[in-house]
């Protein structure tokens, strides 16, 4: 995202930059205090001052040293920016929602500049619309039109074709075949009429030969087209398969933050829909693109050579025909869009009522809902009816209008034939070429749209494929068997560069120690764990595992030695057996049973009708929260990890489940370095040490008793929980 907009020379003059002064950030103030849109107004931050330019005038100026901070506050569809000076908040400007994210970086930028550092804050977020042409960006970094990549993307497309050169060559030969046959057919018809049928002597043999040839060609074109379509569709399928595999592998290698910034739906769309679009393009458009282009040019030349006057007449109606065809398509799209929207509304309404049926019934609102549904369904039916009537009436009219040029050619050509300037065969050939011309025109007028669709999809695919993976094996990475000593050295990290979550964390954990992590929500407990799991890399400082920098251990090797049990454990669609074996696919049955027993899961699994083969996950058998938890513990147990992460592993469970899970966890954590997050502090009583995180840092470290004696944050938390539970008991 742009954090420094360009200023005009006049505006630069207004800033009056002194020597050594440099503009770091320049963001638009695109609405005034009344809410009116305006241009030429900016918030400018240099390494020394904050300047406010409003419509060609410098209206305010502050030295960075003179105020404490600058903040932006999101409002409803807009934002305000203010500074805090001597404890007083002073409003400096207002901007539309377009610049909300940009302004959130200003605070961090100011902090860096105030601390005397000179680095620029960089935004990794993408613009929503192209700064050059204003077109919306389809979730990509660069505009497919302005980046000059449009042609580049065509090369990318050809690159994709490279591994399929042989198939492509066959398709090209077929394309040429189709062209020759299509062009030759009218010429033979002409020969049949002029040289055979209209000759005085009856040449039955020649006539039959012509007809047979024409028949053979018609059959030939069908075979060629079928073969071409088959090969192109297959080529498309191969290409999308390649792309899908590449995308999937790439997405797996990217950081969790890249995944989290995008919805699962968006990523699925890229893997499924965008690749399907490329495949569709190859199947439907690409295979006809060359044939149609070559044929179009040949037909035009042929027509000009045969009769240039008639050719010009036929061409004169081409723009009209293209215009009609485009207007028609637009109208159809509009109608279908409307029909689709109404259909969505009916579906949405149905889904709403069916999922909320219990509420509808318990409030006795069936009749009102039924009436409401009737109204939407009726509206949908009306639009559908209108569309069908429109098709029935207008489609034949359109076909006629599209072929007006052909009728004119027939009329004038007929006149010329009667006058003896043209033979009947030539006229027939001419009419055939004219209809071919109009057919291709209609097809070609749709080309830009289809091409753009494909290019956009390619761009979106490329956007993922070109991402640098955040976590990767560094050059000197080695395999390492984890012993369990973990150390944080001045580690700092933030998901977004301007928002630090952990700052300057120092912590030494010995092998086999169990560490309880405590703190309010959003303080960075899970972030700390994400760093230990090496899902992210620290921005500053380092994390050492057995004295080795975590970045120097091979990622896959490291991950295979970690066990994780979360509050909500994800079970894949499949059997319980496969879910337990997930981390160690080559485990023996005995190992699986042993792990399940250790996890207190064996008993409940054996009681299920299908035992270890019970199908779970979506559409499968529904396990209770406690049962899922124990399957997850068995999964972790089987892997025998050296490092264990428990994130709220016993939250939201009933007492019996919790007891069983506590027991299972006790066995699991034995002798392993464990990090456990828990809101319910009683579950941390077995922890060797408790680490309290507050204000982006480690606030307290010590055993339960030490921290209770200290009477700090941990003491407060324990007291509060005690009071709440005592109150609850008393109320009961």
């Amino acid at each position, binding site marked *: 995202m742009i954090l420094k907009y360009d200023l005009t020379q006049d505006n630069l003059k207004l800033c009056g930059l002194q020597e050594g002064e440099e503009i770091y950030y320049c963001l638009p103030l695109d*609405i005034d*205090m*009344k*809410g*009116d*849109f*305006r241009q030429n107004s900016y918030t400018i931050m240099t390494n020394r001052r904050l300047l406010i330019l409003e419509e060609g005038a410098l209206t305010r100026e502050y030295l960075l040293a003179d105020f404490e901070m600058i903040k932006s506050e999101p*409002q*409803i*569809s*807009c934002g*305000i920016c*203010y500074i805090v000076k001597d404890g*007083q*908040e*002073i*409003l400096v400007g*207002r901007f*539309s*929602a*377009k610049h*909300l994210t940009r302004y959130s970086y200003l605070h961090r930028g100011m902090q860096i500049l105030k601390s005397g550092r000179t680095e620029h804050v960089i935004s990794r977020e993408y613009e*929503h*619309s192209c700064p050059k042409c*204003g*077109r*919306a960006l*389809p979730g990509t970094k660069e505009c497919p039109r302005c980046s000059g990549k449009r042609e580049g993307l065509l090369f990318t497309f050809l690159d994709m074709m490279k591994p399929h050169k042989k198939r492509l060559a066959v398709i090209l030969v077929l394309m040429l075949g189709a062209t020759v046959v299509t062009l030759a057919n009218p010429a033979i018809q002409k020969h049949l009429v002029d040289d055979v049928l209209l000759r005085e002597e009856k040449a039955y043999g020649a006539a039959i030969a012509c007809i047979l040839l024409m028949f053979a060609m018609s059959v030939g074109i069908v075979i060629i087209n079928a073969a071409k379509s088959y090969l192109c569709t297959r080529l498309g399928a191969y290409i999308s398969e390649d792309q899908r595999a590449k995308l999937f592998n790439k997405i797996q290698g990217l950081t969790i933050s890249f995944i989290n910034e995008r919805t699962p739906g968006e990523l699925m769309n890229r893997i499924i829909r965008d690749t399907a679009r490329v495949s569709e393009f190859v199947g439907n458009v690409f295979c006809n693109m060359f044939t149609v282009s070559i044929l179009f040019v040949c037909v035009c030349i042929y027509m000009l050579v045969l009769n240039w006057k008639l050719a010009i007449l036929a061409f004169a109606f081409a723009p009209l025909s293209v215009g009609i065809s485009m207007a028609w398509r637009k109208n159809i799209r*509009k109608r279908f*869009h*409307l029909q689709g929207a109404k259909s969505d509304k009916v579906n949405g309404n149905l889904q709403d009522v069916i999922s909320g049926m219990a509420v509808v019934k318990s409030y006795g609102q069936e009749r009102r809902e039924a009436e409401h549904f009737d109204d939407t369904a009726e509206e949908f039916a009306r639009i559908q009816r209108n569309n069908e009537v429109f098709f029935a009436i207008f489609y034949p009219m359109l076909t006629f209008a599209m072929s007006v040029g052909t009728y004119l050619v027939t009329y004038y050509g007929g006149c010329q034939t009667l006058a003896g300037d043209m033979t009947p065969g030539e006229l027939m050939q001419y009419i055939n070429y004219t209809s071919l011309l109009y057919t291709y025109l209609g097809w070609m007028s749709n080309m830009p*749209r289809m091409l*753009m*669709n494909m290019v*956009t999809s390619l761009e979106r695919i490329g956007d993922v494929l070109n991402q640098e993976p955040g976590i990767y094996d560094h050059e000197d990475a080695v395999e390492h068997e984890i012993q369990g000593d973990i150390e944080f050295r001045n580690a700092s990290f933030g998901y977004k560069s301007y928002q630090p979550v952990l700052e300057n964390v120092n912590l030494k954990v010995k092998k086999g120690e169990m560490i309880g992590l405590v703190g309010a929500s959003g303080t960075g407990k899970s972030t700390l764990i994400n760093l230990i799991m090496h899902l992210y890399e620290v921005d500053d400082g380092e994390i050492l595992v057995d004295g080795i920098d975590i970045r120097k251990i091979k990622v896959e090797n490291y991950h295979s030695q970690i066990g994780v049990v979360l509050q909500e454990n994800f079970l894949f669609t499949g059997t319980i057996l496969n879910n337990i074996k997930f981390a160690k696919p080559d485990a023996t049955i005995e190992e699986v049973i042993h792990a399940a027993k250790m996890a207190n899961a064996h008993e409940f699994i054996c009681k299920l009708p299908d035992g270890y083969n019970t199908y779970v996950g979506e559409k499968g058998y529904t396990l209770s929260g406690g049962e899922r938890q124990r399957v997850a513990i068995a999964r972790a147990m089987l892997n025998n990890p050296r490092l264990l992460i428990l994130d709220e592993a016993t939250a939201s469970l009933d007492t019996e489940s919790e007891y069983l899970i506590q027991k299972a966890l006790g066995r699991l954590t034995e002798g392993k370095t464990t990090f456990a997050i828990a809101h319910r502090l009683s579950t941390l009583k077995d922890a060797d040490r408790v680490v309290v995180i507050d204000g982006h840092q480690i606030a307290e470290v010590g055993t339960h008793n030490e921290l209770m004696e200290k009477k700090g*944050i941990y*003491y*407060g*938390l324990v*007291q*509060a929980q005690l*009071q*709440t539970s005592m*109150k609850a008991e008393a109320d009961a």
Partner: protein
Amino acid sequence: MKEEFQLSQMEQETDEMLRIRYLNKDNAVFQKTPGGFLSLTVGEEVYPRVQVARMFPFMYKEGLLSIRTADERSKEIGIVEKYEDVGAETADLLKEQLNLKYFTPVITRINHIKDEYGYAYFDVDTNHGPCKFTIQMGGNAVVHLSETRILIMDIDENRFEIPDIMELTAGERKKLDLFL
């Protein structure tokens, strides 16, 4: 011990939340701060900066305002039911803050709408001046607040309102057809 863990205080706060406290010129003094915000004094309570929010932004623009603290917790201090309760001068101060908080230009004229590759590009006149914006087609960019009143959200999450589509000309409505 930290404030948020004080049980008795939490209970007191919960009880307070149940009460509806109406603010009027007798119990509340609103003042504009030198920095351009609004401060409030209610009896002994002094708030150096407060926020003003509409409780029913689409139904009652002029009244039923929730006056809240400006910190992250944004707790309600009281409700201003109607402007008359606080006097003309304070009403103006409240309107000024509301104007800062809400930005939903009203579309007065549609000059042009172009749809291209899944996005629609609007060129309109609004009560805040001419404006061009882009919406995504096929999403939930257009919300029907009633049969004739629509709210349009652009790709940057700016919102635009058409209070009554019947007041647009037939030509303008035709341009909008795809979204209605």
